[in-house]
């Protein structure tokens, strides 16, 4: 396993080729992506739980939210003059809205509130892998289609299995989330590590596409961005059609 991780992170062609040719490549890829997602989910859930434990009481948080709103208005007033009556009205609407949210959070439930909090935390922890799986599967299918049109040779199992390796550099997101807890410098450190894992993940994805399809890197890059280009073009067409219809009606 360590050899596999090392080979993937160093973009070693042989490691990718062996992985793509292995029996049950989809199952192996799926297990990797699930493990990475659960590890990441565990970290973020633990951080959320810590934040919830150390959070001030509900009344205090509501006061802070209204205070934040007032500060926002003060900052906005520095850039553009605002009618004080309008500001007062918006503030009252926002305050009532915030109040609704907090009062709903304080409503009693049939089971003790703590049971609900634990179940919600477990739910969000276990939901993270599903979200990652659906994005990975959907995009890999689009890239596979693009690759096939460019002469690629991967099967659906090989494509899904090998592209799942993109998740390995995202293990960096775990220390990034922990670094985020450090005051002042934590945010910047988290951003930089996140950026590094994203770029590394993209590089692994392109390598996996190239090896699974027996492609050059150039073709793999094209296959990987073709779905984005196609979607952008489709969106542009939809916008043009909608604008055209509106113009014709008016």
């Amino acid at each position, binding site marked *: 396993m360590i050899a596999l991780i090392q080979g993937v992170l160093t973009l070693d062609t042989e490691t990718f080729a062996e992985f793509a040719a292995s029996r049950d490549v989809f199952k192996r890829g799926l297990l990797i992506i699930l493990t990475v997602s659960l590890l990441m989910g565990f970290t973020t859930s633990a951080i959320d739980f810590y934040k919830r434990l150390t959070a001030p009481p509900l009344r205090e948080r509501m006061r802070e939210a209204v205070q934040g709103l007032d500060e926002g208005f003060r900052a906005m007033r520095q850039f553009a003059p605002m009618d004080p009556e309008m500001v007062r009205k918006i503030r009252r609407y926002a305050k009532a809205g915030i109040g609704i949210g907090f009062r*709903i959070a304080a409503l009693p439930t049939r089971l003790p509130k703590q049971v609900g909090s634990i179940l919600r935390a477990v739910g969000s922890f276990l939901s993270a892998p*599903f*979200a990652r799986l*659906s994005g990975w*599967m959907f995009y890999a299918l689009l890239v596979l289609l693009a690759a096939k049109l460019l002469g690629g040779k991967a099967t659906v199992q090989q494509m*899904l299995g090998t592209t799942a390796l993109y998740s390995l550099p995202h293990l960096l997101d775990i220390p990034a989330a922990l670094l985020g807890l450090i005051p002042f410098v934590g945010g910047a450190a988290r951003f930089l590590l996140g950026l590094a894992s994203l770029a590394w993940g993209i590089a692994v994805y392109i390598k996996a596409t190239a090896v699974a399809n027996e492609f050059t890197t150039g073709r793999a890059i094209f296959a990987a961005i073709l779905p984005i280009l196609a979607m952008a073009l489709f969106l542009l067409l939809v916008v043009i059609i909608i604008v055209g219809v509106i113009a014709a009606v008016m």
Partner: protein
Amino acid sequence: MSTVFDALRLCPSALLLRDKAYEEMREVASPFTKGLILIIVVGVLVSLVNIVGTTLEWATSPSPKDIKDVVWEGMMEMPWVEEIPPERRGEIIGAIRQRYERGWRLFPRLFGAPHPASAVLGVVVKPLALLIGWLIYGLLAHIFARLLGGGARLGQTFGCTALAVSPQLLNLANLLPYISVGGVVGVWTLICNYLALKNAHRLSWGRAFWATLLPFITLALLAIALAAAGALMASGFITKGGD
């Protein structure tokens, strides 16, 4: 009982996209019957588990009635109330309250507010929905696969596409509340359907791809045509009514 276990036996392999699961289903004695049992068993299993998850979610959420009252109280604190002339305030707020109450009788159910009763209803609705979807998709997919040069019998197509119900087993995670399985079931089902048609009809990837997608395209076109026909009929009625 052994029939049920036998039907479920191929599910893990089908879920892991192993071609041999689909090939085995192609060669069994009565693939349609086996597929039918599989669809019903998976549907019932998933909906039974969902009853537990939904009940837990219902028991850990505030009651919709309490939420309704809190939202109304909040609305009454907003400045719009003071903008209504005092002499008409009671009458206008009364009318709004009536509509608000009517909306609250409908919206929580419509937007999936958890309730054990609706989860119990799912034991009938879910398998039935899966069954209808399987029959329509299987038939259309068979027609397109045959047009594209496929060689499977109708029963074999149904048997193999029934295995594409396997990703529904991911919904077993709903034993716990607040878990969102999301779109992964849909994408995974699509991939399983592709493998089912590819293996049942022994098609090339390109032909299997079109055989998988064409039923959806046909159904979408049919829905658009029906909606357009409905809109035309409605506009005809309105015009007649206006005359």
